[in-house]
């Protein structure tokens, strides 16, 4: 067994960025001594499949079936396991997206092996990966392996590994002989209004906490997020107060994120919140209280009233 198989995720036939990151990382790891192959389930996806060679795939296994148009853990697991049988890889990579995190364990269990989620670092020891991953929501980092079990099923945290376009065309092959047995059926996908950027995928996040005082003031947070092209996040306090939906929550009981820029506005920095964002590359804090714990992990901070600081910030950014 050698090589890396990468599960590639699409939505409306468009390949997700996090999957391209996983594919490029597989290539950078030298395909772990073999070829980099991709498995792409969906419906009407031949264009998407043809494009994967440019991101590192030597071979693309396509499961094109109307029953796979929308995600199905059981159906997609069937396709991935079939691709594993054909490619015989030593590792299977998933993007650590909602879909990848849901599917990888199901595939691993079907293969009779374990899985390691949320990799932020991969080190090849001989033929096997050691995986660095945050635990306790980033309060600590573990380095772990699969105790000799192969293939190693690993999900990669989005936005940690770079997607790299390269010259290359992958050979596209059809994955035949699937016996789909789908019980839990996805009936539809309702996207959030306005195509809102999700914090889990965003490269820049602007978050509001208790200090923004009320739901109406998320408009101010949004104005800064729009100026920097980022997503709107929130602390648990703001979510529990009912000011914004839980899907925006960053922290130990929300989403754990590592964007390149995280701007915390009116967030004091409870240990559970810090755990969810402390691995961000650049952290900015805006808070009235100079003793707020958030300043201890901030790369840049302004001690001041966010209502006075944010509007001139937005203006200054627009003037850049």
């Amino acid at each position, binding site marked *: 067994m050698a090589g890396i198989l990468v599960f590639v995720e699409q939505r409306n036939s468009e390949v997700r960025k996090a999957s391209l990151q996983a594919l490029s990382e597989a290539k950078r790891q030298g395909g772990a001594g073999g070829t980099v192959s991709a498995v792409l389930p969906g419906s009407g996806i031949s264009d998407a499949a043809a494009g994967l060679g440019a991101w590192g795939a030597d071979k693309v296994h396509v499961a094109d079936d109307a029953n796979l148009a929308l*995600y199905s853990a059981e159906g997609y697991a069937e396709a991935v396991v079939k691709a594993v049988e054909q490619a015989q890889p030593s590792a299977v990579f998933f993007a650590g997206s909602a879909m990848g995190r849901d599917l990888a364990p*199901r595939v691993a269990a079907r293969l009779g092996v374990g899985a390691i989620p949320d990799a932020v670092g991969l080190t090849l020891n001989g033929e096997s990966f050691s995986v660095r991953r945050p635990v306790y929501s980033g309060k600590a980092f573990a380095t772990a392996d699969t105790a000799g079990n192969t293939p190693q099923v690993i999900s990669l945290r989005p936005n940690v590994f770079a997607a790299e376009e390269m010259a290359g065309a992958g050979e596209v092959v059809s994955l035949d002989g699937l016996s789909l047995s789908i*019980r839990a059926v996805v009936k539809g996908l309702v*996207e959030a209004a306005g195509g809102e950027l999700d914090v889990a*995928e965003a490269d820049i996040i602007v978050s509001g906490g208790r200090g923004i005082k009320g739901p109406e003031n998320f408009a101010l947070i949004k104005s800064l997020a729009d100026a920097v092209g980022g997503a709107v996040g929130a602390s648990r306090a703001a979510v529990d107060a009912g000011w914004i939906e839980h899907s925006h929550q960053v922290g130990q009981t929300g989403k754990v994120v590592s964007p390149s820029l995280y701007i915390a506005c009116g967030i004091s920095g409870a240990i559970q919140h810090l755990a969810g964002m402390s691995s961000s590359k650049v952290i900015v804090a805006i808070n009235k209280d100079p003793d707020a714990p958030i300043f201890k992990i901030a790369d840049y901070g302004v001690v001041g009233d966010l209502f006075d600081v944010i509007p001139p910030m937005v203006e200054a950014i627009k003037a850049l």
Partner: protein
Amino acid sequence: MNCIVCMTSVPDTASVIKVGGDGKGIDDSGIKWIVSPYDEYALEEALQLTEAKGGEVTVVTYGPDSAEAALRDCLARGAHQAVHVLGGQATLGDSFTIARVLAAVLKDREYDIVLCGIKGVGTDCSQVGQMLAELLDLPHVGVVTELEVGDSSLSAGRDVEGGKERVESPLPALVTCQKGLNEPRYAALKGIMAAKKKPVEKIEVASLGVDEGSGGFYKVENLELPPAKTAGTIIQGEDDAAVAAVELVKLLREEAKAI
């Protein structure tokens, strides 16, 4: 409607995490063990289902003696009975072994639905539910924030990036529960007293054919704390917020190259 809730006990989320003497696990001295916050949503949903439709809630946990308090907490909140598989220290974070242990416990029991939290807070794997579903040959719906359960099927809403998927599945099925699904209740004094009389079935993990000392699917080589951050640049903006704001934007642009 018989419900099985798989629960794990975890360090209180306010805990300061320190690396233990072996360099592979945490120092658990002084740690308070609680019901993993996401498992509270699973338990609450099961309680509401049985209150509406009859049937019983069985809580299953796999963990050392210290898990007993969290198990009693579940019984105090209204679960009818509990199963405690003793062990789990050597296999912490090994989702597949945990799923195999739970599958061995569940395979001969009768249930309509199995509910888990989306993850055990701490090891943060988010894997046991899906693996357990596969081992029991059940359909699963993960990261559920809306759930309607009928006599032989369920309809659920699950969170995905930037939206929500609507999923329908026949029963029996397994769901993993996300914040937003419900508001978990706390144990009242009456429940705490009643919990003392409720049955807890104890099972030694070895009797399920799992040897914790060998095998395994997830081996931690090293556990470390994140590197300490160096002090950042803090601008005083109390007197002139506009000047501070412009200064911050300049630093983010020119020094951090972040915007």
